[in-house]
């Protein structure tokens, strides 16, 4: 990441921290600062709006259920690309905000090897080398980046179909759909892990804090460095 974008990201973090607050009570750790939370929900809102308007056009079985919510078929069609663009813009900022901690590490390869044990709750506590994000979260992040780029390229081609040929539109349409289906799969898992599967996680995106036992359980590596930093202070 270049110095300019790093400064931009840090400037935004500071500005948001001055306006908003995160109250960290005893026995809790700060997980997501104000800026991250605002970005996350901006991305989430426009992702869900894009998903709904997109799936209305995707399938005849959903068309009549979803289009009335957005003011009818033509309005749904009109709104979808703009929702998509706003999703792309907010995700770009989220990408800059998170690209550092999302870097792929050797520990993530080990994490993936024990994905089966993770998915079947076989270990109560995550291994020591799981840092701020685990490999699953990192995979989802990079998946959104790839899908986001595909959405943007194919979406623009479908949007401005009068300047490109019919075969380009026909191919883009399939890629756009595939990217949406892959994103949907990731989204379902993401929402499930963040709410029902791991109690205590959802508040990290609302209040910005987690309990120390949560951090020790799910992100021991991050918990250790965080504690270490507090002791030094």
């Amino acid at each position, binding site marked *: 990441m270049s110095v300019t974008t790093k400064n931009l990201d840090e400037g935004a973090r500071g500005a948001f921290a001055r306006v908003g607050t995160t109250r960290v009570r005893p026995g809790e750790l700060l997980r997501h600062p104000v800026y991250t939370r605002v970005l996350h929900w901006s991305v989430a809102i426009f992702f869900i709006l894009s998903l709904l308007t997109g799936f209305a*056009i*995707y*399938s*005849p*079985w*959903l*068309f*009549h259920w979803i289009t009335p919510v957005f003011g009818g*078929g*033509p309005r*749904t*069609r*009109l709104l979808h690309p703009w929702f998509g663009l706003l999703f792309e813009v907010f995700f770009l900022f989220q990408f800059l905000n998170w690209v550092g901690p999302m870097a792929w590490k050797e520990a993530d390869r080990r994490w993936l090897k024990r994905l089966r044990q993770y*998915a*079947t*709750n*076989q270990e*109560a*506590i995550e291994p020591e080398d799981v840092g701020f994000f685990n490999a699953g979260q990192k995979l989802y992040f990079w998946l959104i980046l790839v899908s986001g780029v595909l959405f943007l390229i194919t979406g623009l081609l*479908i949007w401005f*179909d*009068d300047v490109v040929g*019919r*075969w380009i*539109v*026909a*191919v883009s*349409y*399939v890629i756009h*759909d595939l990217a949406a*289906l892959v994103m*949907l*799969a990731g989204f*379902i*898992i993401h929402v*499930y892990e963040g709410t*029902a*599967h*791991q*109690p*205590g996680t959802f508040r990290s995106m609302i209040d910005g804090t987690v*309990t120390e*036992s*949560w951090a*020790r*359980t*799910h992100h*021991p590596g991050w918990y250790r460095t965080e504690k270490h930093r507090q002791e030094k202070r």
Partner: protein
Amino acid sequence: MANPRTFQIQEISAHPGPVPGQGTRREEPVCKYIDVSTCIGCKACEVACVEWNDHPFRETTFNDTYQTMPTTEWNYYNLIKFVEDERDGNLMWLMRKDQCMHCEDPGCLRACPADGAIIKYENGIVDFQQENCIGCGYCISGCPYDIPKFHPNTKKVYKCTLCSDRVGQGLEPACIKACPTGCLKFGTKSDMVQIAGLRAKQLREVSGFANAGVYDPPSIKGTHVIYVLHDIKQPERYGLPANPIIPPSYTYWKWLAKPTGLFMGLLGIAAVFFHRVMYGPKLPQPEPPENRTGPREETEAGRKETP
């Protein structure tokens, strides 16, 4: 746009469930016959089309040919294409009336994601219903003939209706009525195919066009507008695709992969729900990390069930 009750509907774009009344009424397939060998390029059909459909006059584009404009437009469904070709070293002026082909397997209808925006009647006419159109433009990429045209103000797509409003009242399409040479005819598909076959035979045997034939491409199960061409081996000379095809995105992908994708999505939601039911939550563990090496307290998730 005809009153939908005039004709029995055969297919509806993006329609979940059966077509109301499908197969309950007999309807003879109709067809427009165009003999390019007797077309004189008078453009009476173009004017008749604009008049019948009450289209405003529009500026034309002059590009060194007799052609009115480069392609058909949202308010210009009918356009004679002038091609300067060669035959035995001499000029051969090809004139072909270009409009919607009313395909038996319509690519526009396959591509359309809006319920009822494109309908096909039992008689073969493919008709756009603009009140249901969402203006996405997929039909344009589904069409092998570059016929549907987007109107930027109404944000709807328009094309030739085969004068379904006239045909529904027992009249022939406006272009047919205006044609002074008889190169345009209208009737049942079987009659038109027979007449076209006779005319092509005449061209082959009497007029010296050895390759004359009828353009009714089987790749889209035939069309409800057929051409008699001097040279059926090279329809590209007239600007017609020899093998018109609908992109597989609108056939296989749309009708096979799309429902599968939707089903997988529902399966995913069911999967996480039952995952929670079967494996339980991952609760924050209260014990400090140094105790982890010792005998761990059995959690709910880890305990084997006993009946």
